[in-house]
């Protein structure tokens, strides 16, 4: 599968409190919740984001709270992929478990700038920066994690295994 979009670029240590501030965590409706995505780091994000757009950040994206609301609101805004040099581990698990595509790629995270048009091939892990005419190679997921993604998330995967 290949996705393509315009890039929103952020720095190191984007924490889950700025991705979705805790003051909104009493909201059960994901649509309403997602209207506050990235609010404390980028007030224009929800106004500007278009389906297929890509978030690129550097180190430790998604650090802090375990709130799954963070990858959920990114996914709900139809972001097609998050690329970072590294992810905080709970965010990493959550993204896989709910089916938000994420890729770790330091070269891409450093080179890609805001507004670049980028395409991502999930089968090969190749990230193409069409604006800069560059390519970067992301590491592939281990087979176990690939199977969770292919099954449509952790719970569907468990159901398929007979739980």
């Amino acid at each position, binding site marked *: 599968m290949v996705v393509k979009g315009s890039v929103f670029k952020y720095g190191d240590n984007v924490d889950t409190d700025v991705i979705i501030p805790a003051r909104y965590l009493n909201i059960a409706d994901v649509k309403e919740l997602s209207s506050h995505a990235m609010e404390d780091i980028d007030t224009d994000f929800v106004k500007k984001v278009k389906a297929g757009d890509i978030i690129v950040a550097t180190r430790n994206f998604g650090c802090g*709270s375990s709130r799954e609301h963070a990858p959920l609101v990114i996914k709900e805004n139809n972001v097609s992929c998050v690329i970072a040099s590294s992810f905080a581990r709970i965010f990493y698990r959550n993204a896989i478990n709910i089916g938000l595509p994420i890729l770790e790629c330091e070269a891409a995270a450093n080179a890609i700038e805001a507004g670049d048009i980028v395409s991502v091939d999930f089968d090969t892990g190749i990230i193409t920066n069409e604006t800069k005419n560059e390519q970067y190679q992301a590491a592939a997921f281990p087979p176990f994690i690939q199977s969770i993604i292919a099954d449509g998330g952790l719970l569907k995967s468990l159901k398929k295994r007979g739980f």
Partner: protein
Amino acid sequence: MGMTMSQKILAHHAGLDNVVAGQLIEANLDLTLANDITGPVAIREMEKAGFEKVFDRTKIALVMDHFAPNKDIKSAQQCKVCRDFSRKHDIVNFYDVGDMGVEHALLPEKGLTAPGELIIGADSHTCTYGALGAFSTGVGSTDLAAGMATGKAWFKVPSAIKFVLKGKKAPWISGKDVILHIIGKIGVDGALYQSMEFTGEGVSELSMDDRFTICNMAIEAGAKNGIFPVDEKTMEYIKNRVNREITVFEADADAEYTATYEIDLSALRPTVACPHLPENTKTTDELGKIEVQQAVIGSCTNGRIEDMRIAAEILKGRHVARDVRTIVIPATQEVYLQCIEEGLAKIFIEAGAIVSTPTCGPCLGGHMGILAEGERSISTTNRNFVGRMGHITSEIYLSSPAVAAASAVKGYICSPEDLD
């Protein structure tokens, strides 16, 4: 090659003789935890996926602590989702207003966490129980839903960093100074995906409450878990709380660590983390005069009885500065009652502080102490991210209860040594 303490616990729960860092395993859980924020998401996901039963109604803890007592209608609805689920499945360890406390102070107190156990919780500070020699780690709501339904979770076996503690800490230095010092040294992703294993002769210098505080903030260095060896203090703590058989694990002598740090407890000074990351640490000597409008003493990091006693020792016979709103939050009903019985509550109130019912409240900007534009708080909580306690221009300085109490008196951030 030998295994670390964390690896041994994981191997045991996966039914394996040996595991190595990087290996993907599926392991059996001793306890799963969720709260009023992450619980409703997990419950909905579990039901949506068609799981109709929980794996063991005695091994699920649901704690209504974040926005409880319900701060508004939406929060009340969220708690109701958890309450209805708990009734439907006859969940034994459902803690609502009246017996709830801040989850990571409450669960050890109730004896629900013990050495050698494997625990996941849909809250990042679940790593707290490593203080008891358990492997415990934070997960999201979907992982938790899977855990509640199947009693299992998948793990990537972590490598580990070893922290060798030595020396005796000075008066007013506590577990909070130790962990802030370490995070300042290695950074907020310094232990990313790894275990932080604490060892050395200095361990015996640390109380259980110090150890809970240290493991609680392992996540702030990006760690998967923090863990202490089991000693007499651990056994004394669980004596009248845990009534089941426990297994004690120790790291092998030839276990491999990606790095080893020696921490001299005697060299530590009162330490604070400046905005807006827990790694931005300075000692109070390096700070200059930083005025605060609020002081928060509580949370899953520092809301235990020892924290209350330290704060009371400083506030006794003194009064907080006129411009500092001082909010003391004993983390559980047991701690609250102890505060009353030991006369600490009286000291707090006479000093001009308020004493709140247990809640996570202000720590995550929920309620009970939200900051206005440009305001600043000294706080014994665990995160000082942008907007964490209120307005995005507000600031949080993280510290020990001793520094927070002393700062409340002076009106600016200081060490207890600076008091008259």
